């Protein structure tokens, strides 16, 4: 595809490792990207993709011993912004970095204006140059249009164009363009516009590193594929012709069996949680019943609407419809967290540091904020009782160090997550909603947190678990709903509830046509979603 660049090699990474405390996010990763190829990087969340991109972008340093070359020339780590500019290595992240209130032309030349390479700020000439660049890449945009009026796909393409166009006279097109899940939030019918843009980019000699979860798009768009799993490059630059969706999936998920199976509580009672006609901005309709002791998983790729469901059911987001808990009817449009809590609902958000706990405040305060009235006596709070209860909780949930006076910022991610779990589980919720409960958590803490989820279910909570980790879903859930583009595309339970089946349903988005076209193994569907 396209014309090979003169240097032939756009990027080479050799023996790259990155350690965070006891966790190894990347170990001895090798990656070579040739000039003007589209090279896809896939792997599920937590596989190390983001860490690799962050090291390339210079946000993070790597462990000593790694070597990185841009365009054949070795560079020092951490990567400096000037080095990225010099080798024309550009990034387009999911959040595109456009200034919404400025025009297309201003956004296009933003960096040049900021760097002073384009000193004369003459709006007319800005627009003329912008029009020329837009024309050249086949983007039908008005340079004078404010960016907030563009559609999502227009914005994505503008961000790509801005990344690759030459910075000034004598400059060349980008050497390497890193696209970090640029299509995650785009409607499926618009994605092809981005693919066309990628074609435009590579035809001018730029290599593209394409990070994506969508395997069909990976196979149709890329020349070669690399797969990261648990920090290791399990496939390094395999030509797409040699791979099927099925192969890719196998590499992504791995075949290692999970640790000792966790004991799921037996569901004896009839459902006590009923979701009726749930509607969120990206999900038109969902009905759901959960029984005491039952753990229901909800999953799907980025942008499929899972996160909106979780917080919508707690009154923390935009949602419509009804929710019954123990016969109490809640109107989701007007539901607020305080009332959801009164109805016995608990919500553990994914963004621990921003929404879960106040990291500057001690463990005592963080774990007791949900039960303050219980400590009120004669108008005053019994602080000593709060503290000793917090100390007890810290022991129960194995928070280390078990000191209730430490601010949460002094704890590791796993221990902070245990505090967040304790804060909610001590309310003995009837309906427990969890959002990525073990994200950024080490293996030991993960096992403890998973055990505490099952313990809460055994005590009679109905659990809704949103997670992007197929293994976790398969381990904990009685039933898993897979969402894609706002629809339930698959319901897995019993024998069919395996991590492979979950991953398969997520990655193919229920598009069985594609699957049967590229693999000879048929995929059965258990339950037809409405």
């Amino acid at each position: 595809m396209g014309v090979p660049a003169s240097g032939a090699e756009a990027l080479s990474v050799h023996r790259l490792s990155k350690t965070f405390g006891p966790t190894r996010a990347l170990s001895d990763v090798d990656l070579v990207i040739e000039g003007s190829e589209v090279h896809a990087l896939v792997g599920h969340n937590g596989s190390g993709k983001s860490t690799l991109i962050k090291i390339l972008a210079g946000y993070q340093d790597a462990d000593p011993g790694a070597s990185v070359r841009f365009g054949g020339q070795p560079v020092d780590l951490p990567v400096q912004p000037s080095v990225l500019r010099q080798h024309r290595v550009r990034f387009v992240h999911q959040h595109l970095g456009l200034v919404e209130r400025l025009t297309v032309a201003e956004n296009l030349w933003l960096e040049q204006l900021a760097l002073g390479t384009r000193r004369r700020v003459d709006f007319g000439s800005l627009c003329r140059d912008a029009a020329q660049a837009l024309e050249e890449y086949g983007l039908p945009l008005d340079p004078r249009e404010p960016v907030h009026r563009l559609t999502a796909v227009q914005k994505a393409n503008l961000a790509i164009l801005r990344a690759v166009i030459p910075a000034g006279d004598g400059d060349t097109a980008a050497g390497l363009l890193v696209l970090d899940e640029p299509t995650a939030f785009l409607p499926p019918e618009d994605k092809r516009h981005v693919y066309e843009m990628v074609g435009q980019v590579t035809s001018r000699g730029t290599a593209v590193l394409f990070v994506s979860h969508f395997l069909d798009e990976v196979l149709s768009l890329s020349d070669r594929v690399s797969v990261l799993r648990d920090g290791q490059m399990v496939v390094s630059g395999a030509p797409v012709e040699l791979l099927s969706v099925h192969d890719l999936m196998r590499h992504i998920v791995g075949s290692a069996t999970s640790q000792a199976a966790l004991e799921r509580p037996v569901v004896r009672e009839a459902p006590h949680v009923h979701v009726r006609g749930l509607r969120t901005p990206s999900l038109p309709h969902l009905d759901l019943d959960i029984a005491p002791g039952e753990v229901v998983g909800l999953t799907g790729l980025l942008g499929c609407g899972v996160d909106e469901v979780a917080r919508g059911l707690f009154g923390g987001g935009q949602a419509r419809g009804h929710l019954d808990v123990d016969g109490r009817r809640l109107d989701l449009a007007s539901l607020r967290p305080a009332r959801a809590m009164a109805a016995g609902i608990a919500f553990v958000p994914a963004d621990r540091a921003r929404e879960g706990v106040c990291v500057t405040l001690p463990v005592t305060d963080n774990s007791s904020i949900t039960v303050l009235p219980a400590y009120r006596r004669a108008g005053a709070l019994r602080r000593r009782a709060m503290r000793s209860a917090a100390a007890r909780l810290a022991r129960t949930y194995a928070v280390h160090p078990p000191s209730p006076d430490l601010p949460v910022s002094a704890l590791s991610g796993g221990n902070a997550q245990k505090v967040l779990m304790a804060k909610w589980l001590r309310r003995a919720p009837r309906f427990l909603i969890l959002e990525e409960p073990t994200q950024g958590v080490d293996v030991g803490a993960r096992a403890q947190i998973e055990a505490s989820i099952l313990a809460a279910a055994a005590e009679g909570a109905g659990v809704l678990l949103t997670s992007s980790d197929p293994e976790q879903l398969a381990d904990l859930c009685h039933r898993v709903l897979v969402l894609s583009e706002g629809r339930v595309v698959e319901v897995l339970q019993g024998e069919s509830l395996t991590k492979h089946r979950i991953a398969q349903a997520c990655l193919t988005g229920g598009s069985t046509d594609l699957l049967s076209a590229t693999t000879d193994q048929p995929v059965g569907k258990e339950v037809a979603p409405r």
Partner: protein
Amino acid sequence: MNADADPGSGLPPSGTTVVSLDSPSPSRGATSAPAPGAADEGRTTTSPMGPGSRLWATSLERAALPLVLLLLVVIFSVLRPTSFATTDNAAAILGAQAVLVVVALGLLVPLRCGDFDLSVGGTLTLATMIVAVLNGQHGLPLWLSILAALAAGAAVGAINGFFVIVFGINSFIVTIGIGTFLLGVVSWLSDNRIVSGIDSALLDLVVLTRVLGIPLAFYYALALCLLMWFVFERTATGRRWLFVGAGRDVARLSGIKVDRNRWGALITSGAVAALAGVLYAGTTGSADPRGGVAYLLPAFAAAFLGATSIQPGQFNPFGTLVAAYFLLVGITGLQMLGAEPYVQDLFYGGALVLAVALSQLLRGRRPQELG
């Protein structure tokens, strides 16, 4: 974005609710933004703390400001034994200047919730003027005039809250505007003249009656300080304010009614500023249409300086009390040493910036220490 001690760094986007712009938290520990990589990969921090040395350092940090205050008192007493080290001077600093302590304590409530109240100078002046006009000019009973002043203060807080909560405007902008507006109201009420004739009973209640040689005003400030401490540390409301200030999204998703608490905090600071205005009327016996404005800056300096002491990293009442008296002792002592009047502005202005810098230093250092 780190706008905590620099709330004016950006203009608020119009119409939208902005929570991060106005959060004057001097809190210790990490800010809301985790290190890149925290979201996706396993970020695990170790906490290599030597408990012994930390404990020692923490106690020193807590006690530093009171010790410096003590040192100042000793130095000035040695240098000016006949003017500084007298009971009259002590009474003047502790009693007559208690107004500053009260204003600063009132500020703590919105500051704890992550909001600024820059209208306290205007509210104080308005309350003083209401007492003077109602009681001094129109002969209304003293208690009724005081009640009217306090009600006016709470009303100002409610108006501040209305714009901050309903329109989602940065509290910095709203309160600076309302404060200026109030000064206009005061000038109009008073014809821009000093209004006198306040019932001398108020003077008795505030500065003339002394207990252990110290005017009652000091005890009012002390009582308010105790009350504030109790509310902050021993009530559910106080805990909720702390969460609203430390993490608005955490508070919201923990079932706390964030808007209601912020609004309540602004009403409280308005009422307390009005109380300070009543005390001010009781120390001078009259109302100066520009008199209260001078308290705004030192009150903020005291609040921020106080956040470096007693409970470092948190706006706290006893730290504020100590900080206010530190500022007052410093000014009085310097003036007795023959410093020019402009030293007051240098001292207050300098103290505010230094205090904010110190509290930034506290939070800047902590995350590195703790990983």
